[in-house]
């Protein structure tokens, strides 16, 4: 497994900050591109719905990427923890854009309809709850909060598992039939969340295997 991390050349430390900013720029490209397409007639005859759905799908992809950071490090020795905050914040921005398009362009600020949807339609209730849960995570995503909150920060940010599961359920309930696209996204979220359940025993086992070898040396 160590061979995989060795195969990826390490980025020199002086480029770390720049690479994180690049990630923000690249991460916002799909939204910018789809917005341009939607505004110029490139997203077909229901551009609002299409744009709304694409933003939601990209939010899920970014959540998947955020959740993949830990197993990448555990299992493959690839340490991309420095990108996790950017991925998480991008996911939040996409969820926020997804909701804004629904509110502004789809329902056109018809708050009665929005309220009705949130109250009565389980998939919208769940999606909206996931958006609300993302807010404290986004607000506390700075270094100051991490230092200030200590263990509390770690506990709070475990909310992301609930958010990911909520996002997956939201997606499955929103489509008329589960085809390969939704299945792939939901399966990835399922695997990445389930990994957290086996992570502790797995890491203990890995450490246990390493220690006798060290003793023998």
């Amino acid at each position, binding site marked *: 497994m160590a061979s995989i991390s060795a195969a990826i050349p390490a980025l020199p430390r002086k480029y770390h900050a720049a690479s994180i900013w690049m990630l923000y720029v690249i991460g916002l490209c799909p939204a910018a591109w789809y917005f341009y397409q*939607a*505004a110029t*007639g490139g*997203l*077909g*005859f*229901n*551009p*609002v*719905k*299409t*744009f709304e759905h694409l933003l939601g799908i990209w939010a899920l992809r970014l959540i998947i990427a955020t959740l993949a950071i830990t197993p990448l490090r555990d299992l493959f020795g690839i340490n991309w923890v420095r990108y996790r905050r950017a991925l998480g914040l991008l996911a939040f921005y996409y969820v926020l854009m997804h909701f804004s398009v629904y509110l502004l*362009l*789809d329902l*056109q600020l018809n708050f009665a*309809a929005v309220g*009705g*949807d949130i109250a*009565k*339609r*389980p*998939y919208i209730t769940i999606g909206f709850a996931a958006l609300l849960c993302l807010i404290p995570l986004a607000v506390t995503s700075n270094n100051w909060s991490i230092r200030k909150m200590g263990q509390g920060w770690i506990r709070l940010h475990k909310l992301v598992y609930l958010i990911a599961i909520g996002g997956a359920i939201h997606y499955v*309930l*929103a489509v*008329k*039939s*589960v*085809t*390969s696209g939704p*299945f792939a996204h939901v399966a990835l979220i399922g695997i990445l969340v389930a990994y957290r359940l086996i992570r502790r025993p797995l890491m203990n086992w890995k450490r246990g295997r390493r220690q006798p070898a060290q003793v023998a040396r």
Partner: protein
Amino acid sequence: MPAYRPPHIASSEITPKDIYLSRRNFIGAAAAAGFGLAASGEAWAAPLSTVPGPYKLNEKLTPKEAVTTYNNFYEFGVNKEDPSQNSGAFKPTPWSVKVEGMVGKPKEFGLDEIMKMKLEDRTYRMRCVEGWSMVIPWIGFPLSAILDQVEPLGSAKYVAFETVVRPEEMPGQGGLFQPLPWPYIEGLRMDEARHPLTILAVGLYGETLPNQNGAPIRLVVPWKYGFKSIKSIVKIKLVEEQPQTTWKNSNAREYGFYSNVNPAVDHPRWSQATEQRIGEGGFFGTKRVDTLPFNGYASEVASLYSGMDLKANY
């Protein structure tokens, strides 16, 4: 019940036939010049001559490009653009429709015979269960014209319909994740099937049906959600019991047998009170209009359901 309402569509808003005929000539010339059109498509695609139908609609037509590129036809894929993009290999000719079951004279109708029926212009609203709608100038004839020819028995209470199964021509019918079981099946009560609004359509916008719209022959029942209007029909069977239908089998809580357009009965996952008119308003001004009971055809069809609880029979 007004059987005939004078046309309210300004004639200036309707593309004159000679213009789309000339467009067709251009396409034909382009094909002849070697740009290429599938031979089967050329054999089927043709302008149709029609007579005015008994129903007129005072609403702006949905642009033809929207009608032919924004489709639900899961046999070609689940995305709206899939049917227009993936239906190029589909062969609507030769074709025949078997009409059988509880009838005195079962019969297989060849496409030639079908196309010789008296074809009428029928501009109808089309409301999708997903919350969007169109106004489509169909060409077709009453389903009752076919039913009359096979002499239904008194015991026949329902009509069951079936779509063709051709995984080699319909990519959505192959592959690992099948969105629905095939064939797609639908059904109507006999009085719904015989209602003069119910047509078998063979064309739209002056021409034969494009593959993505259900070529060569499809049902159009304008007061029901769009999925009831089954496409590319190969079998019509008259039966005694209420037939199974694809979406009801897939999720009976969400899709009922009747599926009449009804703003007062929400889909469990979304409201049905309003609808988005496709092809109007664009990105920054989506056009939402109120959904009407029976999709605006209440004066014609509400009597079919008198005494029925429409919330229970959704």
